[in-house]
């Protein structure tokens, strides 16, 4: 058991550290500013072109086929440099890798990995939140196309997206989990309207809703078989629950480092409560780093997916919200600089997105602890 770098890992770390000295775009935190979202595509492409994105994915799709633990090094160094976190889209890649045909994988994945194609995920609907299988969006075959009609909401990155991974009902006559299929749908067509949603912290470029009114997509862009959409969705949300896939450790550690620097600069301005909140944020974000190291090491044995993702999601949520509380406490709610307030407010979404904490606890209880459902 070794948490330290092998020689190859140390060399990679040094290369990344040197690269970051010249290539850190210095974007504000993703959770506090629309400026981050405006610059995210360029940051993704720069990371990819520098050889620091998609490390553990297969070479055929533009990855480097490295062990998953390299992602820990990337997160470490991004946080140390105060650089933005890596874009969070590993869960999309995993969903398409696991369920897409060879043709679909070859056509769709390289553009996602290299950052040239921007994607969003059309899962939730106004009447299908936690109960996702009740979704009402339909896809009807029409010649070589499917015609998509429905309403998606709480869709991250919808305003910048070129493509949407849409879950739609293709068969209303089978049990609800079995009649869902997954499609890639172009966002750049007349039948698609995208509307930004303003989040509680005021940012407008992360969150949106998408209306599909007889939008079209080629049948060849169905991902997986007809009726495989639910299984694909479970693969996607399973990975969306893994902090190793999301790269959030870097985001948390960057914030905590900034808060610690603030307290160091004028220690007399901060009382015991504020110091305690900061100390917990330090402890929790460090714990998550070690937890991600453990989980990504487990993947070296090929273990991935599974109900343990719910444990990871709950831990990640606890950390994000602990960091949020430290930001609120050290930064101050009524400070003239509302960065910290925005960060705190954003942290409330973590216990909802990708499956609420209540759903995660149900899964831990029934699928890991074996309690009766």
């Amino acid at each position, binding site marked *: 058991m070794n948490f330290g770098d092998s020689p190859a890992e140390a060399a990679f770390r040094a290369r990344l550290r040197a690269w970051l000295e010249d290539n850190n775009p210095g974007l504000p935190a993703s959770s506090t500013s629309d400026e981050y979202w405006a610059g995210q595509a360029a940051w993704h492409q720069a990371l990819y072109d520098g050889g620091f994105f998609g490390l553990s994915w297969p070479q055929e799709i533009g990855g480097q086929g490295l062990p998953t633990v390299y992602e820990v090094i990337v997160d470490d160094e991004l946080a140390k440099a105060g650089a933005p976190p890596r874009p969070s889209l590993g869960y999309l890649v995993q969903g398409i890798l696991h369920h897409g045909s060879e043709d679909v994988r070859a056509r769709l994945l390289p553009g996602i990995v290299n950052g040239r194609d921007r994607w969003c995920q059309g899962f939730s609907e106004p009447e299908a939140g936690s109960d996702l299988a009740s979704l009402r969006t339909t896809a009807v075959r029409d010649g070589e196309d499917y015609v998509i009609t429905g309403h998606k909401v709480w869709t991250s990155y919808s305003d910048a997206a070129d493509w949407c991974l849409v879950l739609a009902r293709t068969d209303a006559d089978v049990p609800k989990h079995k009649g869902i299929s997954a499609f890639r749908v172009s966002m750049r067509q007349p039948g698609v309207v995208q509307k930004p949603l303003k989040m509680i912290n005021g940012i407008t470029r992360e969150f949106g809703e998408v209306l599909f009114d007889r939008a079209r997509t080629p049948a060849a862009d169905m991902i997986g078989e007809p009726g495989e959409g639910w299984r694909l969705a479970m693969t996607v949300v399973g990975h969306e629950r893994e902090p190793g896939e999301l790269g959030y450790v870097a985001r948390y550690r960057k914030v905590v480092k900034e808060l610690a620097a603030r307290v160091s600069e004028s220690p007399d301005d901060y009382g015991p409560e504020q110091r305690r909140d900061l100390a917990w944020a330090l402890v929790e974000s460090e*714990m998550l780093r070690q937890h991600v190291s453990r989980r990504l090491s487990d993947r*070296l044995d090929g273990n991935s997916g599974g109900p343990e993702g719910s444990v990871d999601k709950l831990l990640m949520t606890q950390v994000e919200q602990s960091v949020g509380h430290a930001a609120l406490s050290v930064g101050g709610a009524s400070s003239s600089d509302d960065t910290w307030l925005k960060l705190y407010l954003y942290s409330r979404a973590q216990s909802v997105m990708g499956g609420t904490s209540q759903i995660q606890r149900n899964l831990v209880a029934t699928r890991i602890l074996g309690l009766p459902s």
Partner: protein
Amino acid sequence: MDVRLSTEQRALRDTAVDLVDSLRPRSVIDLSDAERTARLEAAVASTGWRQLRDADEDGTPYASAVEVVLVAEELGRGLADVAFIGPTLAAELRRLAGVTAAASTETVAMKPDLSDIGLAGQPSTAVDAAGASSSMLLAAGELVAVSLGVTAEPLDLTRPHVAVPRDANAMPIGHSISTGALTKWTAFGLALTCADLVGVMRGATTLATDYAKVRKQYGAEIGSYQAVQHLLADAFVAMEGSHSAALHAAWAVDALPGDEALVAAAGAKAYCARAARMVCETAIQVHGGIGNTWECLAHVYLRRALVSIDLFGGVGPNLDRVLAHNLAGSRS
């Protein structure tokens, strides 16, 4: 980086699992079964686990702290009423001071709040003292030993304390110990107590989960109700996070410089200490009325946790260690 256990480490853990499961107390009454405790003591003695941190010819320990915590975790999980942490801490102290290993079973005496090594001339408490004839403490930076008297009625029903009076006769061991060595020893002690707490959390969560699967109210197993499920899920998640932090702390003991090992262990300890009390309290809650009786093992887990939490400091002192390190670090 590869945080998986090696083949040898997995084998050691499996041995510990088997030994503990065959001889652990399965009820509060079992705790007073002298024949069982004697067999457990003999089995642990034959494994050599308490000598893992003895020094070889070069002064390096026979095994890394990772091996030690794999054993500690299983002993905590099984509420093993056998000495391990105490003698292991004593062995590590001797190794760091360059003293030869003890001839008979020995433990360490801590300050009365258990937060640090005890000082001669002050009252102190010898911990995990079953079978120990003496314990070590400090006198002006020198290691000294005191003979141990009668076992006190312990807080922890699985690991007895022995009070060491202020005027106990301190026999010099003949070696001083540096501040740097004490830092390393503290990091090791923190990592060891984290592992015990992770084991306690695993055992307490299993105890409560098993109970929730059989206890029926309103015509259904209480474990089928979300209110109970969510308590147990939170306990499991807290244990998993603690496990990750504790493994890293154990690795850091031998792999990082003393001050970095100390801060890694302090962060892990703050996390594990908060989690362990919550998890043990949850185990009592899930057991309902029975959980508040002496005969339920839930309080035995809680009592053991309270001692491991206090050893080398619980939440407060370790948050202070983390903060001091990070605030100093971000200023430079």
